[in-house]
């Protein structure tokens, strides 16, 4: 499968800050790459370079087969972009914004109007469509920006933190739209701070920290590195039988605290796990005080990944 996005050794420095320290990325056609990283990791800078907004200090990048530096016009005809700061005209209505983007994207006015209408429905913005964007909530602006990125049906989409600031319902809606586009063959590069989002959407994930890709793989591979989800159980009093009860539901070793009341174990399948665990413990007459599945957070990912890097260095 051909790569729709190919970045090689991208570097960028802003004054004292090395925003990118040499980044390589590949996104095959019709797939989603998630760029995962904390604030300031360099995600947005990488995205700005790939969307022709920022010139890298060194390195090269092909988008849709076109060079972002020397064929910027061709790249711009191929991409749709939803940047992190809403890039909308605050004094126009939502509908006027979309039609304007369509017209600047070389669509006929009538086609732009139809497409705008469809996207307004899709992003649940019909009620606000003819209101000035200035009065929109943050989530509405975010959704309109995403709609704008899809106006011209670009084959490649760049979405910078597409669901930051969205409520869960809108977030699921955006995820569904992105999935549908990819099923139609669109290639997507999105940045996110949420492991869950990368897990839900991305075929592959690249973890970025301080301007470098520190891990790259499928979400499952990444989870293996980070240890995945953990089941955490607190009992009213220590009970050795609890290990036997929980063992079939977890993967790997169950770690108990010194007083034996707190148990922790890695798990892979988390659906309905808490219910099953409580039921099994209850049947064995073991009193549960608290039980939860702890999903690995971005912090966990980073802790593990930076740990791993250190040990690798030590080994070398």
């Amino acid at each position, binding site marked *: 499968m051909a790569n729709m996005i190919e970045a090689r050794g991208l570097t960028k420095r802003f004054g004292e800050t090395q925003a990118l320290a040499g980044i390589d990325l590949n996104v095959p056609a019709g797939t989603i790459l998630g760029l995962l990283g904390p604030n300031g990791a360099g995600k947005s800078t990488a995205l700005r370079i790939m*969307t022709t907004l920022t010139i890298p200090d060194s390195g090269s990048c092909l988008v*849709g*087969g076109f060079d972002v530096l020397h064929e910027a*016009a061709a790249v*711009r005809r191929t991409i749709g972009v939803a940047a992190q*700061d809403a890039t909308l*005209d605050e*004094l126009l209505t939502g509908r006027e914004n979309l039609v304007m983007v369509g017209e600047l994207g070389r669509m006929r006015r009538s086609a732009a109007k139809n497409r705008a209408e469809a996207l307004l429905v899709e992003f649940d913005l019909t009620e606000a469509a003819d209101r000035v964007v200035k009065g929109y909530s943050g989530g509405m602006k975010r959704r309109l920006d995403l709609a704008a990125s899809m106006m011209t049906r670009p084959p490649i989409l760049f979405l910078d933190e597409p669901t930051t600031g969205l409520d869960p319902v809108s977030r699921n809606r955006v995820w569904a739209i992105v999935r549908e586009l990819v099923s139609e063959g669109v290639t997507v590069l999105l940045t996110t701070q949420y492991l869950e989002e990368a897990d839900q959407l991305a075929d592959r994930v690249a973890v970025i920290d301080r301007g470098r890709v520190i891990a790259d793989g499928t979400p499952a591979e990444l989870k293996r590195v980070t240890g995945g989800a953990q089941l955490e159980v607190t009992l009213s009093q220590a009970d050795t039988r609890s290990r036997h009860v929980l063992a079939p539901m977890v993967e790997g070793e169950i770690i108990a605290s010194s007083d034996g009341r707190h148990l922790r174990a890695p798990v892979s399948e988390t659906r309905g796990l808490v219910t099953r665990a409580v039921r099994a413990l209850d049947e064995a007459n073991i009193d549960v005080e608290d039980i939860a599945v702890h999903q690995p957070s971005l912090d966990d990912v980073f802790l593990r990944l930076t740990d791993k890097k250190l040990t690798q260095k030590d080994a070398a």
Partner: protein
Amino acid sequence: MSQSVISAPSARGGSSTGGAIKDVWVMTKRNLRHIAREPLQMSDVTIQPVLFTLLFVYVFGSGIPIPGGSYADFVLAGLLLMNLTTSSMGTAVGLTTDLSTGVVDRFRTMPMWGPAVLIGRSISDVLTSMMCALIVAVTGLAVGWRPDAGPAPILAGFAIALLFAYAMAWLCGCVGLVAKSAETAQSVGFLVLFPLAFVSNALVPTHGMPGVVQVIADWNPVSAVTAACRQLWHNPNPSATSSAWPMQHPVVISIVYSLALIAICAPIASVLYKRRTTS
């Protein structure tokens, strides 16, 4: 599948001349919509001209004798130029505002013709200038201004004034592209535009001014365009007696000044715009 996806861009066409004109039109339309949304921001081309006309004709005019005509006949061309000059600030403020929001980033990821942002701005500004000119003319007629010429020279006068306004829009565009915020653009603009508008023959004849000031006023483009309008409209034009070359050939020098300003400022503006939007 990947083949059809890759071929999609060319299907959407390139940046042809037609595309560039369309981009300019889309940008112009956008700026005009802004005006419709916030009409009070337009007070400098709607209310200000009326206010200044009344103020100058009825308050200052009563104390300024004009040889060969009434003060209203004399001052109208000057008021037109003063209003057009000060309102060109809108270009600076509009551009700085655009640059401070993310909307320019959106434009830059689109396959549009880059300069359309600047040209669209200058065109919407000249359209508001036309409205300003109309309001000045109507108010002038109401307070007794009477041009003593046929429709062609009268329109020629307005055309020369609007050409100058268009040139000023490009000058102010450069200010807006350098300024960090709309407030800075506004104050820097006033520092440039107010002396330009007032150290001129627009509101009072120049022969009473002290030597150096008079020379500056006689060579000021605002004076030239004002004198050109007065000459074309057969309104009192005391500057005709000045020996300064621009005052002897106001029509020609007005056009030369305006074209020169556009020729210098438009390329500078596009370079500044490129530099400002590239990181």
